């Protein structure tokens, strides 16, 4: 199933459109991996190799700092994922799409999987390397969003396009909010000393 979600997403979206409880259950069990794996990879990479933020030497966080960072990352991903599923379910009414929660949860699990796999790049925590790996994964996920949404939700490709664009708008706002929240917390004391 995991292989199919990555390499044959159309097949999975077709299956999801039938709202088969078994199919949805087999996909949603991967949902927990979405907020869990990236912080784990990031924690391992940060501890073993240090983060390369662009400066000449890698930056190592102390033990507490790295745990706090990973935990915060996990919480943010949970909020981001759950809110996106909730917003998609809410938007479905506007676009005349199916609005079952488990269906939307399954769809976004499939859409996010390329990003989760690409988050393995955190094991080598160089910011540029991560951008290089995560950007194509992001393009893949966005493609899945535009292509998969109308199939799985049983709406026309036109309505799917509109709904996907609205969700892209939400995701961009969520991403920049995350950036703003992190920076704000950093400046208000929740910072880690960048030691060399």
């Amino acid at each position, binding site marked *: 199933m995991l292989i199919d979600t990555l390499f044959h997403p159309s097949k999975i979206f077709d299956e999801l459109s039938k709202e088969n409880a078994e199919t949805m259950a087999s996909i949603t069990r991967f949902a927990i991996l979405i907020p869990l794996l990236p912080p784990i990879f990031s924690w391992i990479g940060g501890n073993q190799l240090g983060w390369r*933020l*662009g*400066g*000449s030497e890698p930056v190592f966080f102390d033990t507490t700092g790295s745990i706090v960072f990973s935990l915060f990352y996990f919480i943010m991903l949970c909020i981001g994922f759950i809110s996106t599923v909730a917003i998609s379910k809410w938007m479905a009414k*506007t*676009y005349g799409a199916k609005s079952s929660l488990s269906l939307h949860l399954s769809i976004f699990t499939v859409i996010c999987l390329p990003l989760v796999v690409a988050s393995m790049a955190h094991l080598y925590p160089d*910011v*540029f390397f991560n*951008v*290089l790996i995560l*950007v194509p994964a*992001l*393009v893949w996920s*966005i493609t899945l969003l535009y292509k998969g949404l109308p199939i799985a939700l049983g709406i026309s*490709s*036109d309505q799917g*396009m*509109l709904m996907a*664009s*609205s969700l*892209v*708008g939400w995701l*961009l*706002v969520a991403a*920049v*909010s995350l*950036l*703003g929240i992190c*920076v*704000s917390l*950093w*400046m*208000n004391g929740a910072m880690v000393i*960048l030691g*060399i």
Partner: protein
Amino acid sequence: MKEESQQFYHDEVVTRLVQFSLIWAIVAMFVGVYLSAELLWPELDFGQFWLSFGRLRPLHTNGIIFGFGVSALMATAFYTVQRTSHIPLFMPKLAWFCCYAWQIVVLLGGLSLLAGWTSTKEYAELEWPFDIAITILWVCFGVVFFGTIARRKIETIYISNWFFGGLIIVIAMLHIVNNLAIPVSIDKSYSLYAGAQDAVVQWWYGHNAVGFLLTGGFLGMMYYFLPKMSNQPIWSYRLSVVSFWAFTYSYIWAGPHHLHFNSIPEWVQSLAMVMSLILLAPSWASMINGIMTVSKSSVKLHNNPALKFIVLSLAFYGLATFEGPMMSIKSVNVVSHFTDWTVGHVHSGALGWNAMITYGVFYYLVPRLAGRELYSLRLANIHFWLALSGTILYILAMWAAGVSQGLLWMSIDELGQLNYTFNDIMASMKPYYGLRLIAGLVFLSGTILMSFNLFMTIKGKKTVKVKPPTIVKASEVAA
């Protein structure tokens, strides 16, 4: 005497302005791409002053804002004001004068920037002879626009005209006040304001140029063309009017957020931050109005690149108008200020909102002006994906670069010494600048594709003649 209602709309001037806008888009975006290459390989200036970053950068911004942006705004304002007033343009020869004289001013202004003439004020770099020329032309633009509205056959002034009207009035006010200066020679003048006052006036101008030109003017486009393309009335007309007045009132206060942590009073900075946060409400009201309008539409998107571009532009409009107020919060601004995050923010608006909505409008407008189908739907669809991927790649590269810069600049050791030198940090930015160069090339190639597509659509065709509809008053119908 010929009845006005029997005359044709003056659309030839619209066609010409669209063509000029496309030319400026290619030129100014190419300069932008060249600049991003110079940041990677500074030797690309070949030791020539006129090719240096400092001279090319204002050429890029002025070319985009005044060449591409204003030409597109003039075109769409002239097109929409005729149709929403049911009357041809007032003083059409003056409209033609605006069209050609504006291009000459932008061209000569651009050359003057390369020659090193500059007032040093961002987005207002042009020296006093050009400032006077712009003032005269802007008044002419206003005469044509408001003259048409004054002679309208429809009682209501449609919402797009309020936004275009706001653009004309506010930009005139900002331009004149900010450029008050004492000339000392043909190529040099000194501002009437000094020190911190000069900075406050400059950013009152700078931010509201973004507000009333790049936001308000383009919202004028959105409010006319989105309902037309969706074949739907605007979702909530009342909301559009409320958002116009709230937008106009709150935008004008927000400029000093560009001067956080500078030598202006603390309360001015805080007031600007609060007003910037309030600004989110009217900005998003227009976005919601647009999205809800199009969501009710039954128009097919797969063969409608125009609508696809406009829908996507609304998503980026939502991002940019959220990100701006967020970056005005002082605890965020302390990191983002003077970093590439700001550059990313500007381009999420410029590429994602301004360029994409303009592209959508041009894809709608040009086939109608030419009276034939778009030359290639396939090219337009390729352009859509190039524009989307170029914009997202640009934003992500600049977010990563900006946050790294901000945090590394603020990183100090236990003795209070900087952990990283400025040179080290800038040297480490090369990969991000490489990504930005690729993003710029992708976006520019999409723009070139579109220009070719629209050129082939309009090639050999004269602008279609359209008559205003005949209005029959209700009292006459009853009689």
